[in-house]
């Protein structure tokens, strides 16, 4: 990775050091082979997530009452299938309209549920880091180079199909290599969501601890001593962002 990535020293406002570290750490992992995608494919997914913001086809989908009936093509990315690119763009631009049947149908088009979960994990982490930059008028960080190596094909020992569109580790299933997944013993459906690829959860938790709050500190509903805004201010922002995205969760 380029030295000096996420060097915020030139920013017009001082950026907390832990944010720079969290962003830099994720960038180092981004180009490495994952559980189901190679380093090159992970970088292609990240590139597609950036392309999605200016996608004309996505604009047509947004205007349509039926998001799966619109004909067209997303911006292509070398090394990534049309199904994977469609998944990236729908996560970025139409997440609230994703359905179980679409996820299931994709498994017949060479996008397994495990691949989908890792893809979502990449997209949401890249998107949130980019959003932080856009919010503060900072230039986007160049994507890191892809690293060679084999994917791990890692599957957790305990998975259950009881919530959502994909299998997840149940609350009592974070054992063995997954013993670290519930920080402070806390679990919730949103923590379980990406656990069929455990590293995807670890990646977003690390970023979340810097951008928002560590899970272990979320019990403090008044004010975290390391933040300049209190919990109500944080949750007003969170709720407004969720509302605009039409997220019921």
């Amino acid at each position, binding site marked *: 990775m380029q030295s000096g990535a996420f060097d915020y020293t030139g920013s017009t406002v001082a950026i907390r050091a832990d944010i720079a570290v969290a962003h830099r750490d994720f960038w180092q992992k981004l180009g490495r082979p994952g559980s189901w995608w190679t380093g090159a494919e992970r970088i292609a997914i990240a590139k597609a997530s950036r392309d999605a913001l200016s996608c004309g086809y996505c604009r047509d989908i947004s205007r349509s009452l039926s998001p799966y009936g619109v004909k067209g093509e997303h911006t292509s990315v070398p090394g990534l299938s049309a199904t994977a690119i469609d998944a990236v763009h729908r996560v970025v631009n139409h997440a609230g309209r994703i359905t179980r049947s679409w996820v299931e149908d994709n498994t017949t088009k060479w996008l397994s549920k495990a691949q989908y979960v890792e893809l979502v994990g990449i997209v949401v982490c890249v998107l949130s880091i980019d959003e932080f930059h856009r919010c503060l008028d900072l230039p986007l960080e160049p994507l890191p180079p892809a690293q060679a190596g084999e994917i791990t094909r890692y599957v957790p020992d305990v998975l259950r199909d009881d919530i959502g*569109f994909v299998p997840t580790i149940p609350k009592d299933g974070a054992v063995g290599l997954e013993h670290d997944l519930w920080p402070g013993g806390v679990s919730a459906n949103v923590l379980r969501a990406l656990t069929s690829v455990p590293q995807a959860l670890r990646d977003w938790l690390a970023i979340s601890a810097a951008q928002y709050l560590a899970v272990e500190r979320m019990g403090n509903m008044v004010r975290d001593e390391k933040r300049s805004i209190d919990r109500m201010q944080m949750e007003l922002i969170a709720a407004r962002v969720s509302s605009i995205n039409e997220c019921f969760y």
Partner: protein
Amino acid sequence: MLRVSAKTTGTRIDLKGVMGDEAAAAEGILFGKELMRLAEAAARRDLSALPKARRELLAVAGPEVLVDAAGVIANFQRMVRIADSMGIPVDNIGSSVSAEVRGVLPIERFASAANSGISHEQVHE
């Protein structure tokens, strides 16, 4: 969480701020209007509104608040997509706080409410 944090601190707030009502956002929440404007401009990717919202928050609250607010915005741009792309249901849909929030805010019309077992037919009944 907003409702819970307000109850914890005994603060009177107006949940309609969540839907974009500026006066409501300011009720009981310091810099509520400016924080909401920044969140709104960023989440809508409104490039004409974002610089103004950023300047306004910086002017009234300072750089630390601006950075922490940007962090929370970035975080929830991620969280909503995790929840909706995985189709997970709300953990405590039967709780009194959840019912209270759903009673005030028209969020059951969101398509992703179906992931928590709330159908549009139920909403429109």
